[in-house]
């Protein structure tokens, strides 16, 4: 059996090529978040920002947006940290508090819309618009983060892919906030959460396979 190992050692040493060590997870997460910010800049140059700025009286919207931003940052860091062997899988817990803030703060808007009899129900086109926006933003961000994560060696591919999906979904929600025309309604929340769950699920399904070494 030792001969088998010796053969493999010789084979691997024979085809060794220099590699550049990957940057730290924090720096790689920052690069990805930079791409998110660039996408946000691109969207701001194309679309009118009629979201948060038009609802100064609703702090929960700002809180939900802040929670989404924090979730995107922490989930991206956790995804890159768990993609490196030897790093603790406990990093996966890092985005949970901010995710709770994001989802928790999205709730009051929905309840307010539901309980207020004077609230005008949104037309069918709006959730569809949100859905399209979230999906269109999520796809390139998912592809980018999976491509970046593949360069490392995720030993728990499904966990890393789930964190990547959470980061993408949160980033998409954060990018949507400045452009969202109304305060969050029940239909909006359902649409958003459906897309978030879909993005995370698809990342686990596809990303988990793509990240498996």
């Amino acid at each position, binding site marked *: 059996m030792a001969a*088998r190992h010796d053969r493999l050692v010789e084979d691997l040493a024979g085809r060794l090529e220099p*590699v550049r060590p990957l940057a730290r997870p924090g720096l790689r997460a920052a690069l990805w978040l930079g791409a998110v910010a660039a996408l946000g800049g691109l969207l701001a140059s194309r679309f009118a920002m009629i979201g948060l700025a038009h609802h100064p009286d609703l702090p929960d919207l700002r809180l939900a947006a802040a929670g989404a931003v924090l979730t995107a940052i922490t989930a991206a860091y956790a995804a890159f940290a768990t993609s490196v062997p*030897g790093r603790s899988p406990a990093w996966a817990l890092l985005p949970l508090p901010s995710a709770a803030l994001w989802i928790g703060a999205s709730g009051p808007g929905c309840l307010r819309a539901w309980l207020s009899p004077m609230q005008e129900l949104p037309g069918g086109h709006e959730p569809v618009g949100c859905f399209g926006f979230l999906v269109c933003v999520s796809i390139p961000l998912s592809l980018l983060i999976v491509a970046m994560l593949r360069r490392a060696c995720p030993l728990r591919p499904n966990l890393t892919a789930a964190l990547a999906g959470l980061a993408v979904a949160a980033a998409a929600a954060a990018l949507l906030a400045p452009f969202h025309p109304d305060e969050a309604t029940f239909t909006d929340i359902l649409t958003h959460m459906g897309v978030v769950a879909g993005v995370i699920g698809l990342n686990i399904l596809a990303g988990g396979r793509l990240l498996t*070494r």
Partner: protein
Amino acid sequence: MAVAISLGPRTGSPFGRGAPLAGGRPAGLERNRVEARTGSGMGRDGELAALMAAAQRGDASAYRDLLKACLPLVTGIARAQGVRGEAVDDVVQDTLMTLHAARASYDPARPFLPWLSAITRRRAIDRLRRAGRRPQEVHDPLAFEAEVDPGPAPGAGLESQERGAALARAVAALPDGQRQAVEHLGLRELSLEETAALTGRSKGALKVNLHRALKALRASLVPEKD
């Protein structure tokens, strides 16, 4: 083969069979290797980390040394995870291939052993899962009944302990010359020259003493065995 693993810094000499040092390697790396061989300076982790960093720069000789040094470590970690028999060798192969594919993910500023250990444990778990999914032979009653247990029989340890004690008693009862001949030539497996230098007896006398001692031992142990 049982392998003791220590993931912490170690001062022992980890490499007994490293390849000769290639010319032109960074002086710091060579110093680290020498220090590791002599048990001084950086611990085992520092040595392996230096080899891995050199391997990332494309130093095939350092990489070969690193992989060879990893073999007993990976074997030990795989066994500690519960992998047994030939599957251990499969885990070693899988781990080395993953190490090769993922070598860019090692950060030279961080310790090497946790990185290696994480990869090995994952590969061992993968192996155990695959083995768990495969149908086990135990479901085939005839094959299970006919299976011979390759391990030691119950009480084998006790028996060998008793045999050892009986041999020690018989050797202790021999005359000095014969006892020394058995101890050095038979048990410690020294050469005739070494034993002659150690005891001050001639090689011829040692041969005669060994011959007589073996005859006496045979005579004293056989009745006891019956």
